[in-house]
């Protein structure tokens, strides 16, 4: 899949995610839009796992530490064929398997996440096991920038370097916002690149909406023995003008009118992309 094909797919995925959140009446809109391009690249280019190999012990694994942005993940995984798109119409419904955070009852979900600061420690275990069994698998997690205030991340950051887990990749959805406001105002965590480097990681800052850049950063192996930290600079609410960088869209749910506006805006962007491709 070319970069422009991925970009076109992202339009449809954003639309699907917004419809899902609108219909469910709940969801994490802004963060979903900020990490969607990352998930799109992961699932359609990077991860060596498919719906058919979702139980293969040698598969690559992805654990979404920022579990609240599950709607973006649902949209990407449904598109990839892990479950029928119709399943997304049941998200949050009484007795549905499709919960507001990832759970293993959904095919292809590796772990139940949603409490922050859990994904990276879990991925250490997955990465160590992959190394013990010489599966060659890579282990990926997605962190939020607000999430980095959780101390467990730093316990795991230390241990990942100690164990030289160069099969481990942590991607930061660096959208600089969290539920209360700007992360720098809530609990400043910069300089992030320096911190992760100081913890012994290979750090790659990248535009988190640039397919070529994301692909390159995720593909090139890190120096031997170094875990890889992708500092993906993103825009919260990316792709919908009135949602971009607006705090209330952290878990704002679009009204009927807002949904229509957003879908139309995305459709127009998609049309432009198609025309440019043709």
């Amino acid at each position, binding site marked *: 899949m070319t970069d422009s094909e991925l970009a076109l797919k992202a339009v449809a995925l954003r639309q699907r995610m917004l419809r899902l959140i609108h219909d469910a009446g709940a969801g994490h809109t802004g963060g979903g839009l900020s990490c969607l391009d990352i998930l799109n690249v992961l699932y359609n280019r990077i991860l060596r796992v498919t719906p058919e190999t979702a139980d293969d012990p040698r598969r690559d694994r992805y654990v979404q530490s920022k579990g609240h942005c599950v709607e973006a993940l649902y949209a990407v995984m449904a598109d990839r064929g892990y479950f029928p798109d119709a399943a997304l119409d049941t998200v949050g419904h009484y007795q549905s398997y499709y919960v507001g955070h990832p759970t293993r009852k959904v095919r292809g979900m590796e772990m139940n996440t949603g409490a922050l600061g859990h994904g990276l420690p879990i991925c250490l275990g997955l990465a*160590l096991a992959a190394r013990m069994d010489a599966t060659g698998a890579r282990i990926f997690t997605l962190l939020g920038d607000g999430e980095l205030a959780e101390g*467990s991340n730093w*316990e795991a950051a230390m241990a990942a370097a100690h164990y030289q887990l160069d099969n481990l990749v942590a991607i930061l959805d660096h959208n600089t916002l969290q539920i209360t406001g700007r992360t720098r105002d809530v609990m400043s965590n910069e300089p992030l690149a320096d911190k992760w480097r100081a913890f012994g990681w290979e750090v790659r800052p990248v535009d988190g909406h640039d397919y070529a850049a994301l692909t390159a950063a995720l593909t090139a192996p890190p120096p031997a023995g170094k875990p890889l930290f992708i500092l993906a600079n993103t825009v919260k609410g990316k792709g919908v003008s009135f949602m971009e960088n607006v705090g209330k869209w952290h878990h704002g749910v679009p009204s009927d009118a807002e949904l229509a506006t957003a879908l139309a805006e995305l459709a127009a962007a998609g049309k432009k992309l198609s025309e440019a491709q043709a």
Partner: protein
Amino acid sequence: MFTPAAQAMIGQLGLKKGRANLEEFADTLLALATADRNIIAVTSDSRGSGKLAPYGKALPQQIIEVGIAEQNLVGLTAGLAASGKKAFGVSPACFLTARSLEQIKNDVCYSNVPGVLVGISAGVSYGALGSTHHSLHDLAALRAIHNLTIIVPADNFETREAVRFAASATRPVYLRFGKSAMFDLHPAGTKFEAGRAIPLREGRDVAFLATGETVVHALLAAAHLTGQGISARVLSLPTVKPLDTAAVLAAGRECRAVVTVEEHMVHGGLGEAVASTLLEAGLHPKFKIAGLPDEDTVTGAQADIFRHYGISMEGLSATARELLGS
């Protein structure tokens, strides 16, 4: 540790002293792991206190040290378990079940991976080190989490069997071990089954339902009461969850009084589990939870603390007599 009268009773019952359950755990795990390279121990600067130094020497590829970082210990253990490893996360019970409670709840139990959590030096094993190092909350906290089998062995036999069970379990397990040398309580040929109580003594007046390192004291009290014409039953309940409700209900039906005994606060542990089981079945024998009261725990060694709160042959005998009005 024991009064002269209790020591005399130990002699009378012919109880042989084994070793600390922690040591039995470590040797059992080493034996299992030697035969199965998928068994991995995870420690948080705790291999010494977990008696796992020989394990670490013998099987350096099957032990992972995380440093003093219990949250990482449990998350990492869950990740190993999700990858088909039989991972044993070993850390002092006080830290393991408080600081990393959320990792136990979500990463292990909710995600339903077959991780084993081993709380070492549990209860008041650390004695005079004080309440930072005591785990008197762990059974209460963990009982309230779905999808976790909780086992508190009383002696070396129960320990061995519990470790074997955990190594082959397909769901999360919590094991809880103390540091004191334990008396062997069970005759050869005793059957251990997770979720089942093990009868130690028959009796009809009072039943002691005990778990972990308190069981020996209940057994001594029962023998002591027999000498006073009181017939006392003793059940060892290594599995606190799921509770052996059949054994509990039989005790409540057949005995006039029930005394539960545990190295845990009286809230939320074995005693309240037994109480709700009895009440929901419409049974209401005279009832007492022997454990640590809801107060600042007295300073002392484990033996001092047990004696202070009546977890002793004399204390438990008195509790039973009081309930029976004799």
